[in-house]
């Protein structure tokens, strides 16, 4: 078992013929991802990486019965691409692109929820179930099939958590980069729920960042719903408050969102918190007693 993605998952790629998509789809295919084709409007009928190209997601689904889509289109087209996938009935959408306008995401998020599509990202490294399948841009060689579920807001910090849990021999069940944008398609809580229900996952690593209150909400969820050990690192404890304008940001968060508050909330939820990004593997060993 794993969450969201396995070697059977039928995947297409939107923005398939672009250079980034080409590079990462080639690597994903090598890894074993069941990519069945891609979408680039205007290039339907062509063959790319030995796979068919379609003009629309609907056309791709008709021929491939895909249920998942990996999106690499430029930021300005993400809203329409995500909505196209969700409206066509794709149930898992992973959007790698960074720089999507926040107001686009407000609308996209509501529509995906209404249509029952699970959106991961944007601005994320994607998702991987080690040894089976990946939809994303992560370096696959650092992964090891195993028992730790990883959720992270940051790309390269996810890799840090992966490498350390591999070096300790624990391995990963699935790794989900939810992305660092203000309005992510999926939250920590969405993914915590999936890991809690997944038999293969025995412990969960949650990598957060300062800003927003997603970690505080996750802490409350963990306290009431998660029985598996959770290990958490919050990046930016030592970051100084930046220059700012006005008060609205501080008012909406009611003074919350600092690293101290996040750590306090996590400790209260029984989460094993660590202060250094180099201690993630050790933290898992301590919290689980796996040694």
């Amino acid at each position, binding site marked *: 078992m794993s969450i969201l993605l396995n070697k059977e998952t039928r995947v297409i790629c939107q923005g398939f013929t672009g250079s980034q998509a080409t590079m990462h789809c080639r690597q994903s295919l090598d890894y074993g991802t069941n990519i069945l084709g891609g979408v680039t409007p205007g290039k339907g009928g062509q063959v790319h990486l030995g796979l068919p190209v379609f003009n629309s997601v609907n056309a791709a689904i008709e021929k491939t019965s895909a249920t998942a889509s990996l999106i690499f289109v430029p930021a300005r087209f993400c809203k329409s691409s995500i909505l196209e996938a969700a409206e066509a009935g794709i149930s898992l959408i992973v959007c790698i692109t960074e720089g999507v306008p926040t107001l686009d995401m407000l609308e996209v998020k509501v529509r995906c929820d209404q249509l029952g599509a699970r959106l991961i990202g944007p601005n994320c490294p994607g998702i991987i179930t080690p040894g089976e399948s990946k939809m994303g841009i992560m370096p696959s060689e650092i992964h090891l099939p195993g028992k730790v579920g990883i959720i992270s807001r940051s790309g*390269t910090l996810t890799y*840090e958590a992966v490498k350390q849990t591999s070096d300790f021999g624990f391995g990963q069940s699935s790794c989900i980069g939810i992305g660092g944008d203000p*309005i992510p398609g999926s939250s920590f809580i969405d993914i915590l729920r999936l890991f809690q229900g997944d038999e293969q996952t025995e412990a969960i690593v949650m990598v957060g960042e300062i800003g927003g209150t997603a970690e505080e909400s996750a802490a409350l969820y963990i306290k009431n719903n998660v029985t598996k050990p959770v290990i958490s690192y919050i990046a930016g404890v030592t970051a100084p408050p930046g220059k700012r304008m006005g008060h*609205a940001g501080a008012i909406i968060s009611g003074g919350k969102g600092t690293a101290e508050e996040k750590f306090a909330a996590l400790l209260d939820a029984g989460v094993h918190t660590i202060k250094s990004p180099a201690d993630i593997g050790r933290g898992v060993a301590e919290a689980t007693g796996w040694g």
Partner: protein
Amino acid sequence: MNLHEYQAKELFKKFNMPVTESYVVDTAEKVVDLAEELNGKKWVVKAQVHAGGRGKAGGVEVVDSYESIEKFANKWLGNNLVTFQTDDIGQPVNKILIESCSDIADELYLGAVIDRASQRLVVMASREGGIDIEEVASKNPEKIFKVAVDPLKGPNSTEANELATLLKLESSQVDQFIDLYLSLVNLFISKDLALLEINPLAITSEGNLLCLDAKINVDSNALYRQKEILAMRDVSQEDQREALASEWDLSYVALEGNIGCMVNGAGLAMGTMDIIQIYGGSPANFLDVGGAADSKKVAEAFKIILSDNHVKAVLINIFGGIVRCDTIAEGIITAVKEIGVKVPVIVRLEGNNADLGSKILSDSSLNIISATSLEEAAQLVVKSSK
């Protein structure tokens, strides 16, 4: 991206939001002529900088003579204003806004922001407008009223009416408030704003609503479709190194310490700062080279880091995912040769082509120390910086 008050008020005017008559000037010679065109005996003069807290810092004055206006202009134009929201150097004042002065009966607060928690555009209002609004928000949160805008349907007058009722506005002000609310949300959405704030929103002695101050922050990701806003960018208000970095698509923030950092990914960049401090060091900057770093970008990043002469050592921490470590290694070598780096450079490469990258560095015979782990890298760089 931040806008100046005068720019925000230009947008307010376009969206039929109530603002006073005003002029913006950049030389002291013009101020009196323009003040004469604004009828009345009292004026408000305001230094235009990208920071709040201007009033307490002397950057806003109510004046009743032309001499005082001239004095204010001479005092601030070409100088820096330091407020509690700026750093110690402050922000340069290149423009001054002169407004006719209104009689104020009451001061409210009205703001709009993207609320990450509810994933909505939220409009906030309070009777307790003015400089202590943050204190009100933390001590008496029940005095801040909030409504959320439906992302699919947009704003409606029912929400506005709800806020007006909570604010206990007089019936003559309710219609004005509904218009203001609808205009504000439409401005927010059509210009891709991240934050809009009117503090204070005044009630004049005649009982009318008036936007006395204006703060706008725009979603940088949306600037490609906001040409009018992009033209309002004022680079003089940005840190020079930060502005240079953004030209190269690098994300740089200057800090107080002496260890220069070059990292890929914002999260890992913050994590690197954390671990430097755990080992007793102090980072000189935050720098994210991004996912698409090439050797040219790495060289530019190096130049920006070293332009801060507090830097005593540099830590390069790269976890190659998209970016390949051998590309980074070549960039480091090019940069070290080209600009003659005199401080120790500690490099930790991991991930995509890390072994090849490390080999390129160790074969280079340059003074670059390769670390095998993040911990070792942090310890080495802290030691070198002492």
